[in-house]
């Protein structure tokens, strides 16, 4: 029987990985729940408010994006726009080439994953080092993140120790503290030697032009402390009206992502270094990336653009917990990814049209979402789109014969009665292969087809 690709991946997944992903995700869900419960009597009201702030932001994106651009320019930042992923990569490498930059340190940014920036910089002969511990391990392993906040949720300490040994960072040692110290020493030199630091942005305030970045490790701060050029890659949907909105959004982001009131380092960047404030990068570039976002804005799934990338929906999702992130075959996994990834695929939508089906529509993702995205509704809309576009749908039993049966009253009546013969046939003998796995664990009541019709008829006669 044909199976959904996500299901197939989950079935073949190493048991140890599955257990690690499950327990780490469940722990994340619990931490989030505890901190919100301790701190708020009505966290859902706050989530709805945050959702409204973000929905308003994207529905007035024309206004706020322009305002953000002006505010950033006013502070001395260079503002660039990139329509496609390729344009965005080129914008980065053009800036680096112009400055003669050869070495780059990168802070974790999902949009750089989305545009495959490291591959591009590699082909241009530019060394680009991921500085987030998890992302660095992903990079040396030639792997992909399997969670948007915890990129190496699928790896254990022994895997990491082997990778560090292979990269010459010391003898095999799988103590997490030793691993972290070795990364610290290695990264120190990379930061100090780098010509440029590349980051993403969690928010951009249109009114003040402040770019907000949060990390726990402090790596984004280091990327902006030593190098002389700062390049920020920002999805156009990251714009919010003003700094005041951050009071709501930052309070929900840390709690939803990691159960923290605030992430350790919350950084507000307001332009390049000035003569009286010489410490930071002398050049600041902001690249606003569309890469299908304006098309998503035009679609009936625009609510997904509210997303603030906290990862809470991944942690809580029963499918993600079983299947892990790589099952989604795209940069964004989990419920968020099941909506966003097919949309970002643009013309290749059909290739990922199975992702919205990898859900039981239980609704947990919506319940934990800090910006209250109606993810189950969006999944249904995308399933419908997949159907309209005749996307392949493995795992869905053929419904053609049933449709014919159900739309012809005569055949239907006949089938209802004649199916009584089913009561004589053992279920495992039914010649319907796609139903067999389902029937293995179920029994059916005796067939009583047609009896209701007979009853109705005799009732009228009276």
């Amino acid at each position, binding site marked *: 029987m044909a199976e959904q690709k996500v299901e197939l991946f989950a079935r073949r997944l190493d048991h140890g990985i599955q257990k690690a992903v499950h327990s*780490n995700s469940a722990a994340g869900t619990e931490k989030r729940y505890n901190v919100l419960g*301790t701190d*708020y*009597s009505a966290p859902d009201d*706050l989530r709805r408010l945050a959702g409204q702030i973000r929905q*308003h932001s994207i*529905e*007035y*994106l024309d206004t706020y*994006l322009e305002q953000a651009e002006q505010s950033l320019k006013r*502070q001395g930042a260079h503002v*660039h*726009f990139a*329509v496609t992923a390729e*344009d965005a990569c080129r914008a980065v490498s053009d800036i680096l080439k112009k400055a003669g930059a050869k070495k780059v340190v990168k802070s974790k940014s999902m949009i750089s994953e989305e545009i495959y920036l490291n591959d591009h910089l590699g082909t241009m002969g530019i060394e680009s080092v991921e500085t987030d*511990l998890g992302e660095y391990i992903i990079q040396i392993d030639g792997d992909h993140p399997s969670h948007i906040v915890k*990129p*190496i949720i699928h790896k*254990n300490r022994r895997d990491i120790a082997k990778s560090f040994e292979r990269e010459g960072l010391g003898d095999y040692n799988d103590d*997490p*503290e030793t691993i*972290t110290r070795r*990364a610290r020493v290695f990264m*120190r030199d990379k*930061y*100090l030697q780098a010509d440029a630091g590349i980051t993403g942005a969690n928010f951009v305030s249109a009114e*003040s032009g402040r770019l907000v970045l949060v990390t*726990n*490790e*402090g*790596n984004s*701060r*280091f990327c902006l*402390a*030593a190098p002389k050029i700062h390049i920020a890659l920002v999805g*156009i949907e990251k714009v919010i009206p003003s*700094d*005041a909105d*951050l*009071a*709501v959004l930052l*309070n929900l982001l840390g709690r939803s992502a*990691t159960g*923290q*009131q*605030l*992430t*350790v*380092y*919350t*950084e*507000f960047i*307001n332009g390049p270094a000035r003569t009286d*404030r010489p*410490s*930071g990068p002398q050049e600041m570039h902001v690249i606003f990336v569309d890469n299908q976002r*304006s098309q998503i*804005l*035009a679609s009936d799934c*625009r609510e997904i653009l509210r997303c603030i990338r906290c990862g809470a929906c991944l942690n809580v999702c029963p499918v993600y917990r079983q299947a892990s992130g790589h099952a989604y075959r795209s940069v964004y996994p989990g419920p968020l990814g099941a909506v966003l990834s097919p949309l970002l695929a643009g013309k290749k939508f059909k290739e990922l049209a199975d992702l919205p089906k990898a859900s039981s529509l239980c609704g947990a993702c919506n319940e934990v979402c800090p910006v209250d995205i109606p993810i189950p509704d969006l999944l249904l809309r995308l399933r419908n789109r997949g159907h309209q576009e005749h996307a392949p749908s493995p795992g869905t039993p053929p419904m053609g014969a049933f449709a014919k049966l159900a739309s012809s009253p005569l055949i239907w009546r006949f089938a209802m009665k004649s199916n009584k013969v089913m009561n004589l046939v053992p279920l495992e003998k039914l010649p319907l292969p796609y139903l067999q796995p389902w029937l293995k664990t179920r029994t059916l009541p005796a067939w009583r087809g047609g009896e209701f019709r007979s009853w109705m008829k005799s009732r009228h006669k009276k």
Partner: protein
Amino acid sequence: MSTAREQIFSSVRAALTPLPERTPRPVFSKDVAEPKWLAAETDSLALFQKRAEATGTKCFTDMEACASWLRAQAVRVVYIPPPLTRLVALCSEFCEVTSEYSRARVNEIDAAFTPSAGAIAESGSIILSDGSTPDRLAALAPWHHIALVSRAEIHRTIADALAAMPADPNLIWVTGPSKTADVEGILIQGVHGPGAQACLIL
């Protein structure tokens, strides 16, 4: 570049024009996201100390205690910006004191004092700015970082701090030491930044 810009703006406008109505900007009070326990906390200084300690930031209110902590930590080279002469005298008893943060000594200087731009009581965060901190690296690279926080500059809430952000190219809220849980979800402090975060309240 201008063509990409125009293309994006025209796609965005084309996406938004057909909307029958757009979500209005929500009106909310500044304190909407305050934790429910905040109202009972009347003393901002005490609240700051409590929240800072809870997130792993050590709080000192006198120089002697702070210096003896650094001594116990076996600190070798400490950066102390002028004019903190008393602190210099205290630390000189057990380690080298430098009044200049040189990037050539990034890996040698294992403790640094830097002035802050205030703090936030609600979250126990220290606020650093380029205006108050001469070199971003000084507050980040050493294992021990001690921010100098003035009592008068403690904001009660996150919203207060957001409303009072100074015009500076960079502000950073530091809520505890640098940390990661990337390896098997195990919490490790001191990934890139300070493994020991402290503040000296003056």
